[in-house]
């Protein structure tokens, strides 16, 4: 009978439909994102995340507060930074968040896995990169989550804050632990191109680690002089110690969308030919007065509107004397290039740190200190393609190292001011920290347009909202206040970091 045939078909289909099993539902593994990845494939993002922030937003912050650059007229992207009008939601997700939940967390994964696998090369790289990053955060905020940080997977989503000193001490011991692993172990995996800083050259990582330790000790020169001295002495006690003799630098940038140098990607491509950042009169006046014009021309473009170099007094972005419609094109803008590398540590920095260590703690001879100092200037000139540095640091020249036996402060001033020049445009945040530690370049008692103004002295931003005080820190991020009850009470932007204790020179 016909209906029986139909009903057979009907129930056949029905039975097929009724079949259901657990495996049919097992389709919830994300096909778009892997769930397991080796440490070789994570390391590069850990490093580039640091480079992206340090060479991008933190460079802008550092350059505005180190008075290398200032906010231009006719635009206002950075006027709140340049007037020290910092609120807690500034430098939050994109910087603080990127570093903790991006860089540090990726590096933590590499560290933990490498430790498990006793893959010491990777362990050292990740540890150094983490220490480098943690120090920057500790120096910007004073207190940061450290030993309880990065434990979200272990159910700690509200890490406690630790003071900077404790972080510093832990960083030294972490670096020491990583440096004392058995690098001679057989079949130790060797990093290759995924080490986007030194291309797998572990000697450079050891040198970078040592230089980082040196930087950590010297940063405490004022706050904990004995800790700093002992630390430096310990380093120099090792006769085979190597400090960084090259650049710790990420160079993997080309002129294509998503592959460009971070400053170029944002200031030129996104914001449209950099309408915001122009040279600060503080830097311009110093370089002009000292005839340091080759480097000046290499670092800054002449104004698009024509004429010689022109700078703006720090923070004078509402200059009422300028005609309406004046914009950044009337001023010298920093040179941004899609291919420019991001420097984590320039050779000059390493050399100047060594020079300061020798001078402060007498761990080597005056001539060695002088050599490091001169080499640092040489390196900076060379970076821009010039070989006439000796015309500046040679005997009797404008940047000459102070004579043996000069008052110690003169050496420190010379070293830090040179660091301020050598690191300009690339590592400005470091010079901001060094300024706060040493107060060099000096802070001017008069405004930048005063006739008594001395070239190169810091002038407080014309539009400052801090009653004339310089900025010394960032405020704890709003996201932390919203999500982490352990966040310390709010601070003001002028409140000093723990190592910033030097008395004002009278």
């Amino acid at each position, binding site marked *: 009978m*016909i209906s029986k045939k*139909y*009903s057979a078909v*009907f129930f056949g*289909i*029905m039975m097929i*439909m*009724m079949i*259901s099993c657990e495996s049919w*539902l*097992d*389709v*919830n593994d*994300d096909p*778009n*994102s892997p*769930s*397991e990845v080796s440490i070789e494939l*994570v*390391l*590069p*993002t850990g490093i580039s*995340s640091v480079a992206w*922030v340090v060479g991008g*937003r933190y460079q802008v912050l550092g350059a505005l507060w180190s008075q290398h650059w200032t906010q231009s007229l006719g635009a206002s992207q950075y006027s709140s930074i340049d007037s020290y009008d910092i*609120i807690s939601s500034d430098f939050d997700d*994109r910087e603080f*968040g990127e570093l903790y939940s*991006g860089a540090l*967390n990726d590096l933590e994964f590499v560290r933990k896995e490498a430790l498990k696998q006793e893959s010491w090369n990777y362990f050292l790289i990740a540890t150094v990169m983490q220490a480098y990053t943690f120090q920057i955060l500790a120096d910007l905020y004073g207190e940061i*989550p450290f030993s309880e940080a990065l434990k*979200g997977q272990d159910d700690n*989503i*509200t890490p406690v804050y630790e003071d900077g000193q404790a972080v510093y001490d832990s960083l030294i011991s972490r670096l020491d632990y990583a440096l004392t692993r058995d690098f001679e172990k057989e079949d130790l995996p060797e990093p290759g*191109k*995924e080490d*986007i800083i030194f291309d797998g050259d572990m000697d450079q990582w050891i040198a970078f680690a040592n230089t980082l330790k040196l930087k950590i000790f010297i940063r405490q020169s004022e706050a904990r002089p004995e800790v700093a001295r002992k630390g430096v002495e310990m380093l120099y006690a090792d006769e085979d110690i190597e400090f960084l003799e090259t650049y710790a630098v990420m160079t*993997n*940038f080309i002129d*294509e*969308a998503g*592959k*460009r140098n*971070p400053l170029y*990607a*944002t200031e030129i491509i*996104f*914001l*449209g030919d950099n309408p915001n950042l122009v040279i600060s009169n503080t830097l311009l006046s110093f370089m002009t007065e000292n005839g340091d014009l080759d480097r000046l021309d290499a670092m800054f473009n002449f104004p*698009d*509107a024509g004429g010689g170099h022109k700078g703006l007094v720090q923070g004078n972005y509402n200059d009422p004397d300028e005609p*309406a*419609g004046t*914009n950044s094109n009337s001023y010298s803008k920093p040179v941004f290039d899609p291919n420019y590398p991001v420097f984590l540590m320039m050779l000059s920095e390493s050399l100047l740190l060594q020079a300061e260590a020798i001078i402060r703690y007498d761990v080597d001879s005056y001539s060695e200190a002088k050599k490091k100092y001169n080499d640092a200037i040489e390196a900076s000139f060379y970076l821009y393609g010039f070989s006439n540095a000796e015309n500046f640091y040679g005997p009797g020249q404008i940047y000459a190292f102070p004579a043996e036996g000069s008052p110690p402060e003169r050496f420190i001033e010379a070293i830090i001011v040179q660091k301020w020049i050598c690191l300009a445009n690339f590592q400005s945040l470091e010079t901001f920290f060094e300024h706060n530690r040493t107060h060099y370049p000096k802070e001017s008692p008069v405004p930048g347009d005063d006739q008594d103004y001395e070239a190169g002295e810091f002038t407080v931003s014309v539009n400052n*909202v801090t009653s004339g005080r310089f900025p010394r820190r960032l405020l704890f991020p709003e*996201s*932390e206040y*919203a*999500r*982490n009850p352990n966040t310390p009470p709010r601070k003001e932007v002028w409140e000093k970091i723990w190592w910033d204790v030097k008395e004002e020179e009278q």
Partner: protein
Amino acid sequence: MISHRILKLWFFSLSLLVCFLSFDISHAQELTVQGKVIAADDDQPVPGVTVLVKNTDIGTITNLEGIYTINVPSFSDTLLFSFVGMEPVEIAVDGRQEIDVVMEQELYEMQEVVVTALGIKRESKALGYSATSVEGDDLMKGEDRSMLNSLQGKVAGVNITSASGAPGSSTRIIMRGFSSLGGSNQPLFIVDGMPVNNSQTGSTSINGGTDFGNKVNDLNPDDIESVTVLKGAAGTALYGSRAANGVIVITTRKGESTEEGRSQITFSSGYTMERPLRLVKYQNDFGQGINGNAVAYENMSWGPRFDSKMRPWGNIVDNAVRVKPYRALPSNVEEFFDTGRSFNNALSISGGNSGTTYYLSYSNVLADGIFPTDADKYNRHTVALRSSTRFSERLNSSTSINYVKKQNSYVPTGQGEQSVYNQIMQTPRDISLREISNINSKWNTIDNYYSLYTINPYFILHKNGNENNEDRVYGNLELDYAIAEPFSAKLRVGADVSNEQTKQWSAKIDPHGNNEFSALRDPGNNVESSRYRMEINSDFILNYTKSFGDISVDALVGHNINQRSYKGISVASNDQLIEDFPHLSNTTQSQTGSEYSQIRRLTGIYTSVNMSFKNYLFLTATARNDWSSTLPEQNNSFFYPGVNAGFVFTDLFPGLKSFMPYGKIRAGWARVGNDAPPYSIYSTFTTGYHSDGFGYLSYPLTGGINAYELGNQIGNENLQPELSTEFELGTDLRFFANRLGIDFTWYDRTITDLIWAAPIAYTSGYGSQLINLGEITNRGVEALLNIVALRTKNVEWEFSLNFTKNNNKLVRLNDELDKVVITGIGQIQFVGKAGRPVGIFEGRTVTRDDQGRIIVDNTGIPKPSEDLVEYGTSEYDYMTGGSTRLRLGNFSVSATVDVRQGGIMYSRTKEISHWSGTVPRTTYNMREPFIVPNSVYEIDQDDNGDPVYTENTIPVDRAHILDYWANGGTEIDGISFIDKSFIKLREVVAMYRLPVSWLKKMPIESIQLSAVGKNLLLWTPAGQYYIDPEMTTFGNDLAADFGEFSATPAVRSITFNLRMNF
């Protein structure tokens, strides 16, 4: 009045039915009765009336002259006359051989049939929950190309908004408030029993947003027979986890069997013209410039006052400059817009015989919106084929196949150089947009365009573009098998497959010459993307129907399988080398690509038992268990029961019927579970990517280095489904011979275990964690009032009023969170806070000293506060509306009004109008310097370092008046909000049906002419002269309530339509 042609149709179909029914009539001793049935209102014969001998299955129907003949067996003495739309008549034969009957028109169809869950048709009186049906004819009279827009103002308890005036843009529908923070709040759409995709295609980017529409608007409205809106869980629970936000059940037109297999042809054609409904109201006192000075390259209206003197404007090109009088052009923006035009055509042919039926339709929409050029267009073609076949006495099948071809182009919204409207809103009040329309004129090129800060909008219209192409097939196959009384079975298998190809391109912008220093530079780009979506669904249902004396039982068990999959691929090249050649190969760089795929599966079993007692007491129990692939294995099974009851008390107490012909109370309680988004339970790695919100770095890096980073979200292997529990009570009362009807519903819905990606401290190494948290309640009332003011033979006047009030409340979050941020712009946040409705706006306000005086800075401008204050909620206080219909013979007019009261939204249109100085408010004090009233500034600090304030003497001068308004004046972020209240004349329809007598000699059954006005009038509160507050550019879910970011203006339209039946 029911037209004779439709009556004829009824006649044929009912004859057929009666043929079947009459199969086994036994020829006992009988009396032949005949007579004529006429209608009370017009004394015309009524064909097609069913005449039944009571308590038998003997019956017939009246012929075209209204005449019937029936043989009445001796054991029965009563005839029942029934006809849809008329009151049934019961007459004792008393041995008479001729009985004429007068039938009264029934005001409300008590036996109204509603399509409920799973496509089951039930009498509305049997329902224990609120279900609103809108008939296709009612839906179609507005002649809207969007089925959803046609529903606007017609259903209580439902908030339907169209996102913009752009053709083909999406329509959002929210029922009974928001139920989910992170998941979907959109209802489930069912077409002929099969769930269909309603995803939106587009981008909510503020730097060039697009909206290619939501997929339910692909439906051809002419194909729709009825739409049933099931709002509460009691009515929707059987649909499973996707029904938590309500269900819209769409039943399409089918072919009908006629005796001689005759075809019915319907043709309709319409032409629509559109103009902007609401443009910003502009000031006409000040023109181009800044700080009170005339500046030739400015995009602002902060220049000097108009003086009508001849002045040069724009750039000097080839030593020549244009000159014009310096005065306001009050309609420069309005005249920029074209009249949008749209053709809608639909043709259908249907018919059938006793074995098969068919319905075949084709429709098209060819629309070009209000922007000049065809950069905003919408072309849609649909083909539908439905057929049913009766294989045997027991086995029936029906199939439905629909094909949609859609092409649309959308002019991007938002800021930056992609958005046209953004450039328009920054046009100084004295500059004519028509003057810049020729982009080849030397004055108007990218190099010489007058403004340094904006792009010629005509350049964007001509040189940039996009096109979204969709091909979509959806349909189903249904088999019905009558196993053996009382069992029957149904199998329904369906699929919805769509493929969309989107091409987007933007031209290179590299100004030289006069605009050398423009910051607006763009390398151009080409993006080609495709999105493939597929949904397969199957239901197997076993039915049981039986009566036991006064009790009848209708029960079912069913099994459902559902799979939804998606695959998207996008390739981009990030510059343009050759002008006007939008192709991926047209680049100096390597192309970048991305892919995303997703699959989710769900299986469920369900049961429903309906019991009725004496046809006045109805009880329904439902239960469903789902297993979802998106939940952790141990939690992936969830069960939810429901129960509802309806009681027609007027049937129990017939004495009430004299003043209340019909009265019913109903109550329902049900639960619905809602699963998680796919791939949210495990942590994963993602391809390396860093961004500062502007530029970005993406892997692979140059040098052959690729890398992955730890995902920013911690997975949750203990995730639970969201659970929604709803209780509703309602009543349906009719008074005064059905001239007054009241339908009232009260509901209380609680949703717990909300799935939310809770932000966690970055210092944990992650940004968010998916958790279950909190509780949302929606409590509200929906009321519908129907009034028949007048009813005579030729005149009818009806009113319908609806009222909805929903109280949404985010009852609690969890211990760690005091608020969740849904979305935001700058310092303005759209948040959920415990104890408040979902969707609270927060932003900065002015800072005040301890005496409440406003603190200003050294330019006299109020300082923004660091903390955020609450500005209000996006929730309406209430929604109401009404419609009226007046029929005079063959002519009828109807109007629908929508009213929304309360709530606020973010409006970038308002914000930028203050920034660019184009709105009347910015002429405050004729832009002369003024001191902010009751303000102070800081002069010093006391010993504690606390500021000391003194009375403010710094006026806001001309050089800072722009900053004052750009900063938000004394409102700061508050300046960006507008009141969402409005009254809208949503629809006015004038319709004329040609008298049948005129058509007698033509092969045409009916001709109907109509004129439809949509959105003819809009009233908003005083001071809200910026936008139509329904506009949004933030998608079609919860975030859409945030507001608009330079949305395309809404439109008003007029349509002329011709509809013919053959």
